[in-house]
Every structure is written in structure tokens, then in C-alpha cells.
């Protein structure tokens, strides 16, 4: 065994021992309860103790530097930690509790933030105590994000913000917001944008949840009426928010490359098919067409996970954001949406359940997950926007969208 491997195995032992001592056994099997965006689940008792232990150890954000509340682990160590958690049914709720804090705001603050910003903002995220939302899209700035109109005016001591954001996930329950705002209207649309951070609990901020096709959703409309951001909470340079914001979106894509289904259970589709459709005497699914489409889907899913592993191996454990993120996001979306469609098709009539006693939870969840999963190819840069990025940034083809 190489020295690096031996060191990694030693870490595995440490992680296993720490998890055994700190992960409450009462939470085994409860990942689904705490790892969703269902916000009615209270953090108390063993769940609170687990969050606190994980936060103090820094392992809720395992690869962040220890001075900002992270675990200071390498990518390889973080993967080992994840394996060990998985092995005993443990889970890390902190990235969920922090909203957009762990996956997007944190990495961007680490890169662009001042020392003061890192000290103030990162540790509460790492402890899972502060939830962040992101003010990006506006009613008239979706895929064409740079045309955003929410304005921030320099009032000497603070920035005064007016305008409206939409699709702000968790805005109604977040304590902090990172938003792209227009700070100069007299320059090209990408040149007058800044990234501001401000608390949500203030008189000038109002939120309204949006009901989606799947029912209640974490998305909100967010209105700013003379809201304020502290001068020291400008992230990156003034009017350089487009670079900061794009970087954050790369982190977002990176976090959306897993291809995991949104809710609806992660069980084996072939087992589900056997249960609902059944096998014939030759051991084949009783629906030949579905059988082959299911095989195709399982191959697509396997190929996606092979590609994730290949990209990780080729970047040699270095988690730097790669150009492959757009490919992986589109592939993950394709796999997850196909899985949701196949799940309903396997369930047949039972894959129509909306609510009520005639359908079991798995069926109702599958329907909701199918619907909410349609957002995957829209948020974080739509399928088409990812293709713009691939054709321009990877293939070197000309810009096809409007310039400015």
C-alpha cells in the first residue's frame, strides 16, 4: 500500500470512530426526513445534537478551511468520510440547512470575499445555523440574466436596494441573501452589476412563496423596497458582479451534476418494475417495450456515473470547477427526468396519485418528484443555456446570444 493510501485508510479509521461516537443511532433511516427541503421538520433533540457535533467538527463542510469552520479535508478524505457516513446510515444535513450557503455562497465567498467577510459569513454556514438564499432571476431576466434591473444606490453608509427577484429558493425562511444588483446603468449590461449580501430580516424585504405544478415549493418572489445592504458586504469589486455571479453559477452547476432524483426515493427501478409489471416465464419484464427503455435508462445512468468518476479522476482529486460541468448538468438532468417518467410509467395507473388513501406515499411522492423535476432543465442555466456554454466555451464556436 502506498503511503498516501495508508494515510487515507488511517483517516478512514478516525472517521469511523468519530461517527460511531457522534452519530445518534436514532437518526438511522431518517435521512429522507432531514435531507429534503421540507421546512416543517424541526431541528431538535438528536437531530440538533448531530448538527451541532458535525458543525463543531467542521465535517458539514469537510473541504472548507478549518479557520472558517470547515473540516480542512482533502477531496479524497471527504469522499472517504462520505463513504463511512453512508455505510452506517449517517447523513450530512448542513448543506440543506444552509440553503445556498454551502454549495454556492460559501465557495464564492472563499474565492472573492475579504477576510472580514469570510470570518463573519462562513462559520455560521458551516455550522448549519444560517440559511442563505440567492437573488438572481427577475421576472424579465431569466436566461438573459444580465438584463436584470433590481437597482442598488450608494447612500454613503449603505446600499439602498429596489426591485424584484423571482425563483429565490427558500427566501421566506432564509436569514441572508446574496443578490446581483445593478449599480451602474450607464454601461454595458454586464458591466454595471454588483454582488451584494444583506440580511433578509429587515423592513425593506418582502417575500411571497410560489405554488408550482407539483404543489408547494421552496421558490419565492422577493420584493425590495428601500432594502439595505451594508457597505462592507459588497462581494468582489464594484461593478464586477457579473464575474462573481458567473463563478457562483459554476459552483451551482457543479452541485447539480449528481443525477440524483429529486425526492421520490432512490430505490432500484428494476425492482420497482418487477413489483408493478412482473416477469414472464423467461424472466423478462412483461412489457417488452418498457423493458428495453428501462435498460436504456439504466445504461444512461451508469454512463453518467462513469463520467462523473472519470472527470474526478482526470482532475486528480482537485475539485476545481471544470468545463465539464455543463455536460454533466445536462446529462444529470436527462437521467433524472427520464427516471421520473419511467417510474410513473412502471406504476401505471398508480402513477397518477395526487393525494388520498388510494395511493401509497411512494406513488404520491413519485408524481410530485416527476413534476418538480421538470425544473432541473430550467434552473441553474437551462438545458439550452448549458448548450450555449458548451458550444462557446468548450468548442470555441461563436457567441450565439445577444451581445452586450
Amino acid at each position: 500500500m502506498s503511503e498516501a493510501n495508508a494515510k487515507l485508510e488511517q483517516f478512514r479509521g478516525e472517521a469511523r470512530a468519530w461517527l460511531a461516537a457522534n452519530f445518534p443511532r436514532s437518526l438511522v433511516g431518517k435521512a429522507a426526513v432531514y435531507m429534503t427541503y421540507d421546512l416543517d421538520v424541526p431541528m431538535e433533540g438528536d437531530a440538533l445534537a448531530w448538527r451541532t457535533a458535525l458543525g463543531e467538527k467542521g465535517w458539514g463542510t469537510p473541504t472548507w478551511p478549518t479557520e472558517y469552520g470547515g473540516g480542512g479535508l482533502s477531496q479524497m478524505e471527504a469522499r472517504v468520510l462520505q463513504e463511512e457516513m453512508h455505510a452506517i446510515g449517517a447523513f450530512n444535513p448542513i448543506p440543506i440547512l444552509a440553503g445556498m450557503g454551502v454549495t454556492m455562497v460559501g465557495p464564492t465567498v472563499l474565492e472573492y470575499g475579504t477576510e472580514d467577510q469570510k470570518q463573519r459569513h462562513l462559520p455560521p454556514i458551516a455550522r448549519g445555523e444560517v440559511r442563505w438564499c440567492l437573488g438572481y432571476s427577475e421576472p424579465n431576466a431569466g436566461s438573459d440574466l444580465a438584463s436584470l434591473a433590481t437597482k442598488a444606490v450608494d447612500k454613503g453608509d449603505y446600499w439602498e436596494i429596489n426591485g424584484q427577484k423571482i425563483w429565490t429558493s427558500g427566501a421566506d425562511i432564509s436569514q441572508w441573501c446574496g443578490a446581483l444588483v445593478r449599480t451602474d446603468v450607464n454601461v454595458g449590461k454586464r458591466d454595471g452589476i454588483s454582488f451584494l449580501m444583506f440580511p433578509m430580516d429587515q423592513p425593506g424585504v418582502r417575500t411571497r412563496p410560489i405554488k408550482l405544478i407539483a404543489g408547494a415549493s421552496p421558490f419565492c418572489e422577493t420584493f425590495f423596497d428601500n432594502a439595505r445592504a451594508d457597505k462592507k458586504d459588497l462581494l468582489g469589486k464594484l461593478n464586477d458582479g457579473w464575474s462573481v455571479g458567473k463563478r457562483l453559477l459554476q459552483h451551482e452547476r457543479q452541485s447539480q451534476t449528481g443525477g440524483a432524483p429529486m425526492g421520490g426515493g432512490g430505490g432500484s427501478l428494476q425492482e420497482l418494475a418487477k413489483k408493478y409489471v412482473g416477469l414472464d416465464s423467461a424472466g423478462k419484464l412483461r412489457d417488452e417495450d418498457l423493458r428495453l427503455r428501462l435498460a436504456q435508462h439504466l445504461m444512461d445512468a451508469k454512463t453518467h456515473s462513469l463520467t462523473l468518476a472519470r472527470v474526478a479522476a482526470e482532475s486528480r482529486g482537485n475539485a476545481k470547477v471544470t468545463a465539464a460541468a455543463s455536460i454533466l448538468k445536462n446529462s444529470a438532468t436527462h437521467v433524472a427526468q427520464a427516471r421520473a417518467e419511467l417510474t410513473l410509467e412502471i406504476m401505471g395507473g398508480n402513477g397518477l396519485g395526487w393525494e388520498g388513501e388510494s395511493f401509497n406515499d411512494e406513488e404520491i411522492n413519485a408524481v410530485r418528484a416527476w413534476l418538480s423535476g421538470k425544473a432541473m432543465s430550467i434552473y441553474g442555466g437551462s438545458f439550452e443555456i448549458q448548450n450555449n456554454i458548451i458550444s462557446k466555451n468548450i468548442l470555441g464556436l461563436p457567441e450565439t446570444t445577444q451581445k452586450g
Partner: protein
Amino acid sequence: MAALNEEQSILKDQAIAWINDNGPVAAFRAMRDSGNPLGFEQATWSAMADMGWPGILVPEEFGGSNLGYLTFGLILEELGKQLTASPLLASGLVGAAALILGGNAAQKKACLPRIADGSRIVTLAVDESTRHDPAGIALAAHKTANGFALSGDKCFVVEGGAATDFVVAARTAGNAGDANGITLFLVDGAADGISRTLLRTADSRGYAHLKFANLEVSHAAVLGDVDNGGALLDAILDRARAGVAAEMLGTASQAFAMTLEYLKTRKQFGQVIGAFQALGHRAAELYTEMELARSAVEGALAAIDADAADVPAMCSLSKCKAGAFLFRMSNQLIQIHGGIGMTDEFDAGFYLKRARALETMYGNQGFHRARFATLMGF
């Protein structure tokens, strides 16, 4: 692409340099125009043998370099890019795999050094109809006083014109469709009981139909176990599939490169056509499909090298993914090039024809999707 070790990098660079000098598409075109019935030039094959390529899988004690399937795949991919014609896949990969997996000590000693030095071309004769159906093998091998007598037909034998030896999958028990009762034989291609019909196919590769007329072979010709050759045949076929998939990836990735170059240079309506979003998005989707296919191809080759439990599923996955991408890419190569793509003077047609031929080789996408379902238990 997979993170390569130093040996692999050197071999890959050597292959690229040699193919550019000696085996570009222009060489394939010249071979086709000459009407060469074997489908490759002897000089090309000799040069490959001199570089040790047919021995990449062969253990060192038998004169090879034992570098494994992932390494072999790198060469096949580069050859696939330029459609370089040779029996390297049929003999260096499939023939060698048959001997390595199924040969006894005497067979290995007699055969592997000569596969490695290119003096023998050993290919697999498996299909008996226009469809790939290993379970349906019916070519009969009757037991005789001294061994077996083989009677029946084999179709579309890859490099069947140039082969010196055949690995023949025959039925020694049971009926067509039975999993058991298959035996593999290593037979001399020059034997009197074998007649060959060389095929003139659209892709100009050297296929042949074989007819076995009571060909007598001894027990020494049996590769592996009598009646229980089905698993061995599957293992050989899986390696063949993984190898073809690597060649397909190479062929498709070159078609992609040609198309991308055209998108950047061809002007219509006052701009390069790659500036049209319809084509930019198509290129992005093809590129995405290529990256995914590469993972499947490299994954299958690596699984074989690691002797992983999921080799059968990985090889079906690889053949399917590479096949789907090559099909789409070879068609888009012509579509995006427009009229010029339809001319014989341009190379696009070669890629389309080869794509169609490779799709049928060792099982098409439909075969492998169904096999994957069976392997997954449904």
C-alpha cells in the same frame, strides 16, 4: 480521456505519429480504389507487427507486451479515427483473447507468439445468419474416432479472407438456442474442408462467409472444454465488443472533429455556420454524447483489465453507447457538410459506411440493450 501512464502515453503518441504518416484516410481510400479483396495492405500489417501492436495483450513469455485492454483500446481508437485497415482488432484482440482465455499450454505456445509477430491471423467465426445470435449456434461438430467433424456455415467472419486460422464456435450437444453444448475449435484456415467466399461490403473491410464440409479435427483442436464453451465464447465476445467500441469511438470522434472544423470555416449568410444556434446546440449535444460514450468505452476496457464482476454488462453498455454515438455522428457528418458530404471525393461516406458495418459487428444496439436487461435480472 483516462489518465494515462507513461507507457500508454508513449504508445499512443507513437500510434498517432505512425498513423498520420502511414495510415491516414487517404491510405484507406487507395486500398479501396485498388480493389484489394483482403481489405488491408500487407505492408501496413507488417509495420504494425514490427511495432508490437498485435502482441499488446499477449503475455511476455509468448513474445507479447501484456499491456492490457485499455492500452489496446488507445491504439484501436487512433486507427478508428483514420479508418486504417488491418486485422489488428480481429487477430491481435479477438484471436489473442481466445487463446489467452481458452488455450491450453501447447496451444498458447504454438499460437500466441505467431499472433504477436503477425505471422498468423486468428479470427473468430461465430455468426451463422445475418443476425448476431451466439446462443443460436448450429454448426455441427460430430464426435468421430479421432476427434470431431465440423459441418455448417459461418457468416460475416471479420477479416475472414486474410485469416490463417479460425476460432470456430460449434455445437457438440443440444440444439440451437441451448446455452450448453457449445465447443470452440481452433482450426487451420488452409484445411481442405473449409471454403471461403470473400464479401464485397460497403465499408471495404475483409469479411468472408465460410463453409465447413465435414472438416475433421483432432481433440487437440478443442479450445477450452467440450460442450461447455458458451461461457468462454461470451468472454471472448465481450472483449471483442469492448475493442470494437474503442474503434467506434475513434471513428466517431474524428467525424466530430471534421464537423466542428467545418462549422468554424464554412460561411453562409455572411457568417460561419457554427454561429447559428441550431448548429451550435447540435454540436454541443454531439460533444456531450461523445464524452459520455468515452466513459463507457474506457470503463469497459478498464473493467476487463481489472477482471471485474460486471464485465458482461459493461461491454454491452460500451458497444451500445459507442454505437449510438457513432450512428448519430456519422449521419451528422454528412448532414452538416451538406452536398460536399455526399461526394465520394470527400471522406464522410467512408465514416458512414464503416459506422453501419461496426454496428452489426458482435451485436447491434438492440442485441446489447436486451442483453443488458437480462444481465440486470429483468
